[in-house]
């Protein structure tokens, strides 16, 4: 079972490499470090949102408010910076806001027991409305240079934000593997009742997943403000669907329990590459969404086919084993059929 999702990530990674190779063959300037790095920078927000979303999807939930949380956190960051709050404090505040917004969703889903899509759908309206109320509907401009300087800083030509994002993804992956409590996300999503019977704190785990989703939206907000330099009212609009699509593409299963930050990373990169690729292929950019949608459908369909084939083979093997054992041992013995 644990082999399958890993192979899915590998398949998508392979597809991604092939895609980059093919586009590069057609238009060699695609391979230039400059364009690859700029694509990486573009994908950061999507990767972070998808990673946050991953925690929620692991617990078999869904969070459609990530875009709105990012927008509201970005507004708070912009307002704080314009009010003269020091950069580090403003960033901490933004992360805190993201975390609290997510935690509100978490409490609603885990403790009030509102179905996730409804809770986060309601929250989407509330957060987006609050964003407009806080700013009076106008864009936040004239944001101090400090955060843009941070965005412009580079180590070996790679921006600090990109390094930070990759480190975050790496760290999250490690923590999810090493910490026992972090495995709870998987247990709860795979089998909620089973996890409860084993004494795993199911509800707190779910609540934490949503809070983490908010926290990651907060990080994405910091990067957004740094990269763009102002906060338009559309900040994060529709990003929730992109984040879910990226995660699913990378191998996060919406039925819960399957996925890793690496899935989010690969999926996020993939969607960004598709979007940038058309420019390099000189195809008009308005085909972006159609191609992204078609690829998403094809990938999940292939995944379905593979899963069915693997399951069939496993069943066949089990049937064979069962036939042999029942032939060897007395007929009164019937092996337990699992699942």
């Amino acid at each position, binding site marked *: 079972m644990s082999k399958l999702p890993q192979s899915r990530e590998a398949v998508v990674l392979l597809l991604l490499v092939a895609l980059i190779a093919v586009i590069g063959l057609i238009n060699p300037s695609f391979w230039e470090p400059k364009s690859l790095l700029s694509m990486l920078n573009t994908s950061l927000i999507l990767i972070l949102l998808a990673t946050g979303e991953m925690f929620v999807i692991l617990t078999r939930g*869904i969070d459609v408010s990530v875009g709105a949380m990012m927008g509201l956190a970005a507004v708070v960051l912009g307002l704080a910076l314009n009010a003269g709050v020091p950069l580090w404090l403003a960033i901490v505040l933004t992360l805190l806001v993201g975390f609290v917004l997510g935690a509100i969703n978490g409490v*609603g889903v885990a403790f*009030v*027991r*509102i*179905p996730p*899509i*409804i*809770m986060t*759908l*309601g*929250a*989407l*309206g*509330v*957060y*987006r*409305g*609050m964003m*407009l*109320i806080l700013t009076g*509907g106008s864009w936040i401009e004239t944001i101090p240079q400090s955060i843009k300087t941070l965005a412009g800083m580079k180590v070996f030509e790679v921006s600090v934000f990109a390094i930070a994002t990759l480190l975050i993804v790496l760290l999250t992956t490690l923590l999810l593997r090493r910490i026992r409590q972090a495995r709870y996300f998987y247990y709860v999503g795979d089998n909620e009742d089973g996890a409860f019977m084993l004494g795993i704190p199911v509800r707190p785990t779910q609540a934490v997943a949503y809070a983490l989703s908010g926290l990651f939206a907060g990080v994405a907000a910091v990067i957004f403000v740094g990269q763009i330099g102002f906060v338009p009212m559309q900040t994060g609009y529709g990003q929730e*669907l992109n984040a*879910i*699509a990226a995660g*699913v593409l990378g191998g996060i299963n*919406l*039925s819960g329990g399957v996925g890793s930050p690496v899935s989010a990373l690969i999926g996020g990169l993939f969607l960004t590459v598709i979007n940038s690729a058309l420019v390099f292929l000189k195809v*008009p950019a*308005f*085909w*972006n*969404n*159609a*191609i*992204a*949608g*078609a690829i*998403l*459908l094809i990938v*999940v*369909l292939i995944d*379905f086919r593979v899963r069915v084939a693997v399951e069939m083979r496993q069943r066949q093997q089990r049937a064979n084993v069962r036939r042999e054992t029942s032939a060897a041992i007395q007929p009164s013995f019937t092996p337990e059929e699992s699942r």
Partner: protein
Amino acid sequence: MKLFKPWLRWEFFLVVLLGVEMAVFGFINPRFLNVENLLYSSSDFAHIMLAALPLTLVIITGGIDISIAAVMGLASIVLGVTWQAGVDVYTALAVALAVGVLAGILNGLLVANTDINPLVITLGTLFLFSGLATAIAGSLGAAGYEGISGLPREFTRLAHGSVGPVPYTLIFVLVLVLLYSILLHKTRFGRSLYLIGANKDAARFSGVPVKQSIVTAYALSSFGGAMAGAMLTAYFTSARSDLGSDALLPTITAVVLGGASILGGSGTIVGSFLAVLILGYLKQGLLALGVTSDVSQVVTGLLLITVVALKYWAADLNQLRRNRRALRTRTNLEGGVLPENQAST
């Protein structure tokens, strides 16, 4: 848990909610209760009704269709493009609706023949359809704000005309409410949708044509999206690929508020219809009070969360009460001795 007492039905609660809403707005601003005005302003959310009614069918089967918003834009641009190519506007309308049905059949086939989460499939088709719409518009140079305008009056009149004070669209929606209600509550197809939502395997084993029903439900849902797209085109008198892109969340909100369980197995057409009225007039009422649409977004979100939370709490309490009663009955039957190992059940 069939409730025969009418005051315990969700629709009754919705009617009360709608009444309270009207009373509150009417109390603050008596001009709000102008019947002509109320009827007229229903055109502002008629497209939500057109989409929400058939979406109810999909949600009853335990699925979801988030591609309807994209179908609105696709139908709109297809209508515009076909008309621009020199075809009669009603033929263009038929083509647009047919495209909607085809889109729905694609969704339905993918959902019915795989175990992939319907959210993932319709997310994929959402991107696909909206991408196609943008691509069609872009290729023909109609991507701008204007879109394809200059549609004949006989067509735009469909969204603007009225019989007395009652707009055509409202009459049309009411007819649809009746038709969908009959379809859902009085036919075999409708009953099988509930069974599929409650337990898909049980439905299949009891001979319900599961795949066929699911494909039909998604086709109807997309057809509703296409009608909404056509209606928006007539309402704004221009065909644009991004029409209806804001309609997704209000539509789902309405269906859920209307009493359909997002997990499948319950929901009614009348409930969804009432919920659209509640949400639509809430926005209108707040606007009339000078509250901006930003704040009304917050109010709508809070309303959705609160109402659903209350509903689940009520159901939980009810369950708890029935469990206690069952336990009491059993302990009485067994001579007042509570079996140790069953005390927790």
